């Protein structure tokens, strides 16, 4: 049993923290306020090889590991959950399925630029009538000569409109149910592919969340990812890893909120002494610190398992369930501890509370995580 980070992971944390504090935090409030996509920071992250952390160098990656990647998302999310999810969606959802299921040609053509950060990735599974029930896909792909022709639409797609490369799921054989779903790599500038509605959200407001529309969009046959009919399996495997990313984001949000709150408690005076001297508030701090550390252990454990080829389906679900709960409960308490100021935009905790909510919803709601965990336990 060894709970210490490696030297590499330690340095990754220091670099990510420095980057987050110097580059990300100063614009976080503006990104939230205006809902703009922080493109400049995505470019800076690319230069420092932060967009391909867990992928091997031969595919353009940093040659790092899943734990380092989780740490990166955590550190970014401490100051800006928007930036955290951009990295998570790009890495876990947009790039990983190509790494795991792509052919050598697909990896060279698509994964290398994604892992180098020259291109941004996204993942399109959810549809208006296929959310938690992902099997209800309405988007169809029909083989026509050398091309598949895609028709249909996707919603709530993170990095939509900003990404260059999309992994898209569609029905190739409606009669087979989940075994009729296939995955495709779609380039942003493919004719017939367009961006629809851009969502105006409660939190992670700088993250682009859009509708994707496919109208007779012709995808070359060689862009089929994995085999025909294996799409559902690819989607579920991808989401297992994605949950580690979102769990890291939730962990970061909670830690970030506690950090600013601790500062505030030491500074703010009431009844002639700092709030930090009031025992009732100390108890709240102790509980939050404990919950966050428990979440961290679950998150790193899931990442460690993934990095070391151990099962992580249940671990990722537990990490996301618990970390998302923690993010919501901690940020709510942090707003409370800030009193009236916490409810204003003068302090970042209200943003963190709004950002926290999504972690209980996307990449599988908390209820879905419970289903996954229970299925593992009760099988």
């Amino acid at each position: 049993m060894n709970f210490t980070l490696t030297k590499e992971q330690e340095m990754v944390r220091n670099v990510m923290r420095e980057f987050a504090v110097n580059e990300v935090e100063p614009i976080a409030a503006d990104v939230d306020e205006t809902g703009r996509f922080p493109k400049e920071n995505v470019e800076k992250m690319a230069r420092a090889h932060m967009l391909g952390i867990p992928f091997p160098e031969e595919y353009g990656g940093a040659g790092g590991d899943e734990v380092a990647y989780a740490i990166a998302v955590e550190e970014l999310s401490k100051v800006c959950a928007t930036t955290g999810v951009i990295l998570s969606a790009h890495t876990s959802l947009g790039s990983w399925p190509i790494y795991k299921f792509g052919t050598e040609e697909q990896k060279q053509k698509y994964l290398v630029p994604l892992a180098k950060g020259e291109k941004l990735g996204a993942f399109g599974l959810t549809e208006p009538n296929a959310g938690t029930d992902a099997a209800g896909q309405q988007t169809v792909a029909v083989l026509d000569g050398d091309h598949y022709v895609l028709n249909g639409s996707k919603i709530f797609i993170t990095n939509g409109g900003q990404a260059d490369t999309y992994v898209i799921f569609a029905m190739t054989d409606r009669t087979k149910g989940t075994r009729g779903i296939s995955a495709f790599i779609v380039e942003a500038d493919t004719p017939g592919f367009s961006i629809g509605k851009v969502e105006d959200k409660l939190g992670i407001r700088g993250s682009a969340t859009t509708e994707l529309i496919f109208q007779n969009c012709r995808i070359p046959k060689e862009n089929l990812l994995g085999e025909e009919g294996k799409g559902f399996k690819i989607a579920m495997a991808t989401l297992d890893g994605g949950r580690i990313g979102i769990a890291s984001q939730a962990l970061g949000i909670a830690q970030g909120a506690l950090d600013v709150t601790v500062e505030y408690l030491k500074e703010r005076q009431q009844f002639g002494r700092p709030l930090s001297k009031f025992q009732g508030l100390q108890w709240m701090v102790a509980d939050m610190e404990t919950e966050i550390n428990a979440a961290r252990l679950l998150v790193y454990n899931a990442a460690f398992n993934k990095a070391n080829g151990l099962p992580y389906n249940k671990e990722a679900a537990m990490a996301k369930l618990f970390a998302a709960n923690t993010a919501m409960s901690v940020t709510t308490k942090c707003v409370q501890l800030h009193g009236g100021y916490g409810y204003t935009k003068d302090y970042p905790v209200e943003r963190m509370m709004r950002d926290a909510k999504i972690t209980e919803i996307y990449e599988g709601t908390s209820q879905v995580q419970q289903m996954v965990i229970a299925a593992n336990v009760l099988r």
Partner: protein
Amino acid sequence: MKIIVCLKQVPDTNEVKIDPVKGTLIREGVPSIINPDDRNALEEALRIKDENPDTIVTVVSMGPPQADVALKEALAMGADDAILLSDRAFAGSDTWATSTAIAGALKQIGDYDIILCGRQAIDGDTAQVGPQIAEHLGLPQITYVEKLEVKEGKVIARRALEDGYYVVECETPVLLTAIKELNEPRYPSIKGIYKAYREEDRVKVWSANDYDVDRENIGLDGSPTEVSKSFTPAGRDSACEILEGNGKEAARQLVVRLKERKII
């Protein structure tokens, strides 16, 4: 082109706190960092390398074995090789002895066009080691460099003054010291971090036996200066009068106090 960058691992003095009871430094939990000015020096070397890819950037540091972390970070930023001068014999060196030890190693490396140092380290703030290395190596120096242009066989540098700057031209080899204004240091790349740790031999450790240096002139005993005593600075004894009330009341009281004391 061959560039050597000298850098130092320092405690982040922004994080150093004083124990209010004992009046001593609390060093626990203070992170070690690459000295800020040295980062600018390294960035400039890497910038030159970006423009002339056949440039080799070697980083050199003197310090305890743990200082290899700073060198790994420098490698992760893009330096080619690193040398750590680490030996008990160096312990307690003042700037003269430090510069003697480093200059000896640079002589051993021998082949260089530009040596870049940070202006000063934040733990000592002396700004002496750079110029002293230059003198030991018989090199010209340009300190406080805020802008640099490298041409065939020479450099043109802007060296900052309090009230303006000099433009200084000098043939290579030359030693330069960098200030914050020179550039914006890049972040170490994540890929670079893994590479630096994977390729273990990229940080070479040299002891005082591994190169030619006069043992009489290094370490505590080779240092011309000695610390005769150290103490925490005395605070002011005047008790602070806290002006009570809301902003307006406090502000008015302050103006009255200042007026009464004829300060305004």
